[in-house]
């Protein structure tokens, strides 16, 4: 009974989150190239997953990560596999660190978001290396990730406020359980 209620509570904000993701992906894949930014994209999917890792504590978190990555894969040829693995592992890491890491201030939120993007990069790079991608490719990916990650991290505090409204989570409460 309780689990059903929880699923009902998750469904609506998750749907809004996915619609938001679609709009942000359209911005990243269409508006940014129109503005002349062809070599850099903003990975909003990572930002959403980091948020969910911190604030959304539900048993279906892995499926939510999968849903985000699945929608993301409609806009890229990357596929959903590697991102889902990275996302689920990051959510698992966050679940262990939630008691220690609190997104209590803007600088801390920026720092933590950047750190988790580095973790995301390490996981996805490891997966790519297993698939025998060269080191030059990984290095190139890293140099792209740094500015993109920095911009995303700077956006994180404001974005998390918006996400708090969608998920009706209290941002001052670091646990933010739903």
């Amino acid at each position: 009974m309780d689990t059903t209620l929880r699923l009902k509570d998750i469904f609506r904000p998750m749907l809004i989150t996915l619609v938001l993701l679609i709009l942000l992906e359209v911005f990243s894949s269409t508006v940014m190239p129109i503005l002349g930014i062809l070599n850099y994209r903003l990975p909003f999917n990572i930002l959403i997953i980091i948020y969910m890792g911190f604030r959304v504590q539900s048993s279906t978190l892995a499926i939510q990560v999968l849903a985000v990555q699945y929608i993301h894969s409609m806009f890229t040829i990357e596929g959903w596999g590697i991102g889902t693995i990275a996302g689920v592992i990051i959510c698992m890491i966050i679940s262990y660190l939630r008691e220690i890491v609190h997104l209590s201030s803007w600088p801390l939120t920026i720092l933590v978001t950047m750190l988790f993007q580095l973790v995301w990069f390490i996981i996805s790079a490891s997966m790519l290396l297993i698939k025998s991608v060269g080191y030059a490719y990984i290095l190139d990916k890293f140099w792209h990730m740094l500015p993109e990650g920095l911009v995303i991290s700077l956006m994180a505090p404001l974005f998390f406020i918006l996400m708090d409204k969608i998920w009706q989570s209290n941002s001052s409460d670091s646990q933010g359980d739903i």
Partner: protein
Amino acid sequence: MNTLEMSSRRAKIVLHVIVLSMALYSTAVRDGAVQESSPFERMIINSVASIQQGISGVSGIIFQLVEDYVANINASQRNRRLTTTVQELQREIFYLDELKRENQRLKGLLKFGAEIKPQKVLARVVSWDSSSEFKALRINKGLKDGIKLQSPVVTAEGVVGYIYRLTEHFADVLTVLDGNNRVDGMIKRTRTHGIIEGFQRGRCQMKYVARTAPVILNDIVITAGLGNIYPKGIPIGTISRIEQENYGILQQVEITPAVNFNRLEEVAVLVTTSKQNKSLEWRVLDQKQ
């Protein structure tokens, strides 16, 4: 910890394991060369691509207005027309030159089989890949326009890529800038073969070129027609960097693509009426073994 929490925790672990397994399986079996999309994926891509097309169209109109009316109306229009004509003529000359060389070499020695002439489907670029590490783009033509998976995509300047994912009204093109795209190419002057792959900073690299091959800067690289995707003789780019070591049997060759991807707005998809499915060369070889 009460029973409810325990069961919730157990469900969470089970779901994590299932999703991770699915993702691992998907990553392991994923085909980097082409992607078949499900009806659900097609539906979503068609819907979101329409938004992308709308935005792209509006911006195109705005840019066009600024270019045509705020700047110089007549000069701009004439310039655009003439540029297109010159590009078309350059391509024609290139093809004729290539044909001439081919004929000279093979005259009287070979009989060519009947070739199926590809039709051109003109399409507009509506968006780019949302991940910066992949170099793909989305065009506003799809299955309904006769496009097939792996159809080559070109412009007047040269090769753009091939159709990687397809829906009814839109298609994703894997460009030659992407590391997953491999083109069998050759240097026009020396007929030296190599495999062209996407590299870094908007460049490609030509692999498997022997160290003794007489390659020089600005050599033109064209498609060899052996990869089962691209027709022979389409320009890929020019050699912009050569690195030779004192050891080894190969040299590193970097290519600047002929197509200016920063200003890519329209492309042509080459579609044959043949119903025969294309198989990538390496896959055909695998099957024969």
